[in-house]
């Protein structure tokens, strides 16, 4: 797997999404954004938003859908 931060975080976000996709939709959606809010350090979320803001290419739809609930880190 590549060590480029975006590729890696896209991969990780999609991994979470695939687990959450087997839950009822609303629960899975919440599961996904709260997982990222709870476990991803701001630097990781910043990188994720770079991808999301550029159109979210490569991210599974559930991640894109959850984006508005993911806490955007305040610029350090």
């Amino acid at each position, binding site marked *: *797997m590549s*060590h480029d*931060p975006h590729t*890696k975080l896209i991969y*990780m976000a999609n*991994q*979470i999404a*695939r*687990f959450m*996709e*087997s*839950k*009822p939709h609303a629960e899975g959606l919440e599961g996904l954004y709260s*997982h990222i*809010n*709870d*476990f*991803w*350090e*701001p*630097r*990781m979320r910043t990188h994720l938003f770079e991808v999301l803001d550029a159109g979210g290419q490569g991210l599974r739809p559930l991640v894109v859908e959850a984006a508005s609930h993911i806490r955007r*880190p305040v610029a*350090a």
Partner: protein
Amino acid sequence: MKDFIIPDRDFGTPAAKSKQMVTLTIDGFAVTVPEGTSIMRAAAEAGIQVPKLCATDSIDAFGSCRLCLVEIEGRNGTPASCTTPVAAGLKVHTQNAKLKQLRRGVMELYISDHPLDCLTCSANGDCELQDMAGAVGLRDVRYEAVATHFKARDTSGRANPQYIPRDDSNPYFSYDPQKCIVCSRCVRACEEVQGTFALTIEGRGFDSRVSFGAKSDDALASDCVSCGACVAACPTATLQEKSIIEIGTPSHSVVTTCAYCGVGCSFKAEMRGDELVRMVPYKHGKANRGHSCVKGRFAYGYASHKDRILNPMIRDSINDPWQEVSWPEAMAFTAARMQGIIAKYGQKSVGVITSSRCTNEEAYLVQKLTRAVFMNNNTDTCARVCHSPTGYGLGQTLGTSAGTQDFDSVEETDVVIIIGANPTDGHPVFASRLKKRLRQGAKLIVVDPRRTDMVESPHIKAQHHLALTPGTNVAVVTALAHVIVTEGIYNEAFIRERCDWDEFRDYAEFVSLPQNSPEATELLTGVKAETVREAARLYALGGNGSIYYGLGVTEHSQGSTTVIGIANLAMMTGNVGRPGVGVNPLRGQNNVQGSCDMGSFPHELPGYRHVKGEAVRDVFERAWGVKIDNEPGLRIPNMLDAAVEGTFKGLYCQGEDILQSDPDTKHVAAGLAAMECVIVHDLFLNETANYAHVFLPGSTFLEKNGTFTNAERRINRVRKVMAPRNGYEDWEVTMMLANEMGAGWTYTHPSQIMDEIAMTTPSFAGVNYEKLETMGSVQWPCNEAAPEGTPLMHVDGFVRGKGKFINTEYIATDEKTGPRFPLLLTTGRILSQYNVGAQTRRTANVVWHDQDVLEIHPHDAEVRGIKDGDWVRLASRSGDTTLRAALTDRVNPGVVYTTFHHPDTQANVITTDYSDWATNCPEYKVTAVQISPSNGPSEWQEDYAAQARLSRRILSAAE
């Protein structure tokens, strides 16, 4: 703290479990004991020691020495008190003229065939034969035996065929047959306590001898696993620790806790002065009940190994040699560097890694260092790479991040499922306790790609071995659930009462899907559908069902999902909340549980409370007088990513060797190399230290006070038996660094740290050192509701309220085999070595395992032209290494297996950085690889060795 050795009283035979009480009189005293108790034990409980040789209370009575004779009014003869059970109203006499005479006769026979070199015998003062000769009043031996076992030559100078020379092949104990009285205590201990069956009595009558299996075997070549149970049971000098032979008998002992695995065995450290003479498993230890394995019992020599670093060292760059400095200089240098980094790159550019080998108090201080002094949440622990999915999965489903049972629970289980664990090697004392239960008839299901010793070994055979393809745990666990649900053998009453019924229905619908059936997953998992069905029925219907699992569950990209699936299985069958059942993670390192409890993870404060919670932060903000960051910090892999990116620059790493233990070595090395201040706090210059700027010498578990928490949530005391050779206990070192950075901490003893933990963390509220002193140990939660602790969790309801069923969809790992990498590598442990081997490699344990080898099925080897013992090149998408091949059908074709105890092997050069979706726990257990013949070490191994050599140069302070 130090108590004199009062040998733990030996009651002669094990305690009886009956609730029915019986009263009898012994020598005129009335005694009341449980039914089934031996007369010998009843007498001992009344304070009367009947002379004995072949009986000891760790094993069943055998009745061979005839020394323990007693008289019972109204009965004929003189029965052996060890094999005669009590009965109501018996009148027993243990001492009269007839008994005295009989006993002297017995002793006389023993002594006539025993060398009389007591004064120079290594067991002098610690020999039951000697004691019994005294107890029966033996004053002379009237005849000289013609044939003996102890004279090397007879009177005419001919070699005595009965004389067998001493066997010193085991590095830790010797077997000296001339002193053997053939009481068979050793044989029975090996069978009953350890469960290895390495010893037998060969021959009959005068010819009978203790033997390590086949006649040609010496102790080392036999099946013996060097647990020491036979040595502890032997009443004479026949089986004896070499350390006693070398040093002499101990003068005092201190009870402490093994610092190796998560079983957390209690030991008596037997001392003379400040020299450790031997470690003896402590009979009253609640995790081990008097048993031990080779690591805890014997492998402590690393504490005095010449490689130990005792002075702090610093250097400007990792290309420089090390410079020995004083502690104050080291602290000034380190604090200045860390402060410089924080000033330049910001508060979040530094962090810590706590150790699962250090004490709770030490882990607590290290996470406090980052939270209260560095002012961020960048703390993580080695548990990340082993059991983080346990915390997540059990937290989500049951509500606590820990196992549900105590180890005693295994004595009441009827069906055991072991998933991805190899307890005979990883958790040996638990394995012995489990095997004992299996020999009593409990059933066993093993889910493991490899045919481990649990699957089949003397007197043990698993009913079902689900030899699945690595990476398909979720599919198998879900298929088990499918069978239980679709065949209607779940426990509806339990689910309705304890879980959310609607959630269960959703879940039942999901697992019932045809794609989750054993038939549908058979091709994928490689496990026959019928086997899965039978195993599921056995677990659901076979009585008390318990699940024990290890790293083979957690170290996968779906590790957390499997843990959830395991909890689902236990809930749907009602196997939670009473003895004999439950969900039990077998923890790797001694204090993995504790380091997690202590808030080592970047998202939670001590007691598993998320940093986003204002009330929780408030507790610590008041206690520490600082503002706590409400954002989660970086996990180990994220720290390394951030380091490579240039935003993470400083790391304090206590008692953990991430370069060797974490996956994808090259990435770890790149991350470390990109940092400006790496502080390694450890016993040895470990692999990570090759990239460090500061080395702070650590102390061993023998040199400090504190507590460890084992896999059953049991908080055990670690007691200092000698002064730290490096000058300071580890918590003192952390405190010095914190104070150098302005923290103003004032602890003078770890008990004060525990008091702070109790004050801030509800599940520890009732824990303090006085309680540990009186109770021996206590299992958290320990608080007002449970002042004596909690052996079993979830008894009347789940901690989270209702148990939660969560769907567990199988998602194949992206680490797939293909034409270039057609084989699957999985990794594991062996008994004699521990984790990355830093300690055990520095003990005589290397005689059992001096290098990592690659297990490969003969078929896979043949098509590649590989023979047993050949060097092979093992390559994955991440890198390659070389090691020697061992051909075995323990692994299926298509699967290869190795351990990672030796740094030269660099097995983690091979592993990829795929990881668990929820916790980033690395996927160690599945790597697609190819294997080819090779001539020797790979280029990376050679480069690495060269770098390591360069990096380990030390200039002493004088230069």
